[in-house]
Structures are given as C-alpha cells and as structure tokens.
C-alpha cells in the first residue's frame, strides 16, 4: 500500500476517498502502520475483513489461502463499481493508471464525452454521436 500512500495527495485533489482492506486484524493494522517504514505514511483507513465476508462479497477472496487478490475497485458517487483490476500477486499496482482512470471517469461524468485510449487530462474527449460511428 506504500505506492498508494505516496500519491495520496493526488487522490485527495481529485476528491477521491481511499480505503485499503485486507483480511488482517485491526491489531495487525495498528502495528503495521506504526512500525513498517512504508506503512507509516498511510493516511487513510485500513479496514479489517477478518471474517472474509467483504472479500467474498467482492469476489476477490482466495479461499484456500485466506487472503485476497491484489484487487482495485473504483466506485462512483452513485455507488456503482466503474473499474476493477486484479494484479498478479507478484507485481505491485500501477497507481498512475488508477489515477488516470479516475480522471477519465470524472471527465466523462462532467462532459459526457468518450475517453480514448491513452487519454490524459488536457486531451480531448470523443463525441458519442451515432453520426460519428465509422469516422474515427
């Protein structure tokens, strides 16, 4: 979670609430946040899913191991899941891409425009008119 913690100010600027969750206990979370050099900078809640109910609800629990995939969900203000990713356990997340997707979703929500591949803030969106089909 250190990569997310290092970019927390950007999530805040975008008005995005960050929640991190694992199947560890709150006791473990406390000590983790206090002693781990990479976790000490975490400024968002560390949720405990000790019963595995939430992880199972979201479909990311590895039943045989008792912990979850490295999964990310972006949830809209209406409470709808907009983005899901599952990373290989061996590889950490690309926080740049998660922030880019949030920016794209927020841009779409504000303008109604489509977001092309590789879009970055400042780039144009795409008109989603039927007349444009086949012309892009």
């Amino acid at each position: 979670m250190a990569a997310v913690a290092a970019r927390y100010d950007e999530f805040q600027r975008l008005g995005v609430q960050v929640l991190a969750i694992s199947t560890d206990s709150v006791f473990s979370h406390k000590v983790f946040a206090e002693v781990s050099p990479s976790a000490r900078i975490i400024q968002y809640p560390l949720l405990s899913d000790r019963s595995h109910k939430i992880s199972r609800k979201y479909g990311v629990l590895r039943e045989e191991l008792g912990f979850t995939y490295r999964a990310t969900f972006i949830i809209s203000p209406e409470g709808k899941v907009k983005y899901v990713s599952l990373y290989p356990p061996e590889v950490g997340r690309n926080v740049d891409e998660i922030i880019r997707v949030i920016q794209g979703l927020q841009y779409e929500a504000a303008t109604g425009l489509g977001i092309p591949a590789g879009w970055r803030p400042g780039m144009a969106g795409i008109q989603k008119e039927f007349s444009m089909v086949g012309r892009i």
Partner: protein
Amino acid sequence: MSDTKETKPALEMPPCGYPNIIVKPEEPAPDFTAEAYYRGNRVTVNLSDYKNHWVTLFFYASDFTFV
C-alpha cells in the same frame, strides 16, 4: 477410534452465502461495515458513508509483505 470410518469432508460452500464471483463494472458496489485502523484509532467504516464521493477500494493480501 478404529471402527470410525474415514470420510472425506463435504465440499464446503462459502459460509456466508455469497458466491465468490468478482464484482464487475456497472454493478452496484456491495455495501459493508468493517472495523478499521485510522490515524491511531479503532473505528467503524461503512461504505454507505461514502455515498456521493468517488471511492477507491484497494484489497491487499497482507500487512508486512514485500510488494
């Protein structure tokens, strides 16, 4: 115990009744309540408290791991 028949445990279904199928885009985010550690305190977090906000929910395997 010698006359106890060895039986295989029945295939267990997830105990709380949710199928372990990942939630997909455009589906409602399942609500939950969880205990959490937040800035030195033990708190309760409800996802529904974050309604009207964008939320990023990061599942991670374990505290104290390498990646």
